[in-house]
């Protein structure tokens, strides 16, 4: 494709400057119109690619995660239009609550487990078509246009994070395309991230849950998540595999 519309920042800022100049020339007096906030809808709305300068990650504080709470799970299902077919063995599951229990003391903890967005994802290694891929900003996704549904990635994933769609689906969410015969998993709500918003589970956790989930850029030393992982001890699940997941847990 050669004739792509020009969304370059240069052209945008030039137009904004022109408009601003027009507004100023009307002063003093009432401003006749306001310039809408430039690039308000996130960097990607202006047509720029995601960059590897960012590494999205999550820090989950398990002391704030209640055993009985599954607000993150239901928020995920609502956001992405996941519906069950009464077959728990095969129903899609992007995030689940896992309860771990120490048999000696009886002490138990519950943690949300989803795609861990590994730095070296085994699902990407094994994919025969290149459908399973890692975006520059660290989000691991399935390109369903090239997924053939072989499910190697499901076998390779040590976190059991992926689901295969067995049924014909209808009325999917426009921002979360899903269809029979492809593999899917947590996208970290990539459509929200590209619009400068938080993943649905994080939002639900802070609204109605315990506020256990913190989302942010692990590459930015000024971000809250970077400062917290620097200050407090945190763990990755199955850190021994050396995959360096982007999801970290506190008080595990």
């Amino acid at each position, binding site marked *: 494709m050669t004739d792509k519309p020009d969304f370059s920042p240069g052209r945008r800022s030039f137009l904004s400057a022109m408009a601003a100049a027009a507004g100023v020339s009307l002063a003093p007096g009432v401003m006749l119109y306001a310039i809408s906030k430039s690039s308000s809808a996130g960097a990607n709305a202006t047509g720029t690619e995601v960059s590897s300068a960012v590494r999205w990650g999550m820090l989950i504080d398990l002391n704030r995660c209640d055993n009985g709470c599954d607000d993150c799970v239901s928020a995920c299902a609502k956001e992405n239009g996941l519906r069950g077919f009464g077959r728990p063995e095969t129903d899609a599951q992007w995030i689940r609550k896992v309860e771990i229990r120490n048999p000696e003391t009886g002490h138990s903890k519950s943690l949300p487990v989803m795609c861990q967005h590994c730095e070296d994802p085994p699902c990407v290694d094994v994919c025969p078509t290149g459908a399973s891929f890692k975006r520059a900003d660290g989000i691991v996704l399935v390109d*369903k*246009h090239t997924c053939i549904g072989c499910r190697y990635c499901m076998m390779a994933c040590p976190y059991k994070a992926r689901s295969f769609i067995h049924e014909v689906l209808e009325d999917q969410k426009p921002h979360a395309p899903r269809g029979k015969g492809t593999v899917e998993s947590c996208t970290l709500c990539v459509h929200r991230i590209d619009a400068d918003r938080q993943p649905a589970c994080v939002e639900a956790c802070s609204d109605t849950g315990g506020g256990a989930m913190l989302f942010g850029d692990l590459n930015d030393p000024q971000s809250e998540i970077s400062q917290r992982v620097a200050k407090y001890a945190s763990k990755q699940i199955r850190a021994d595999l050396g995959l360096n997941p982007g999801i970290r847990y506190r008080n595990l």
Partner: protein
Amino acid sequence: MAPRGTRIVMLVIMIAGISCLSSVIYADDAMGALLPVIPMGQGESCVKDTDFMRRNHMELLKHQRDETTLRGVRSEQLSLTECLSCHAVYGPDAVAVTVADPGHFCRSCHDYAAVSIDCFQCHASRPEIAR
């Protein structure tokens, strides 16, 4: 050579078939051609002119699909969601129809051209409905 009676029956069936067909899709009287009935989109104009879109919409969609999925470039103009929101066709109940309805924008033409598309096996074929 079929007997005369059989030939007349075949002719009658043919005429009946053609008249049924034309009552459904006989759209352009001036040209006398069989054309699909294409619903009008909303807004003043499409992202490109109609002739260009007729021949090249699939290239735009495919290009944008890779840009968005792989590189996170979300141009509102060329997104499938944006296409479907301008080209939504509303049924008698004022709810946008899905691709299951023959009047759906994409389907009206693709049925005519006998080109089957896979987009809507995964993608929503209408704007999101608040529930």
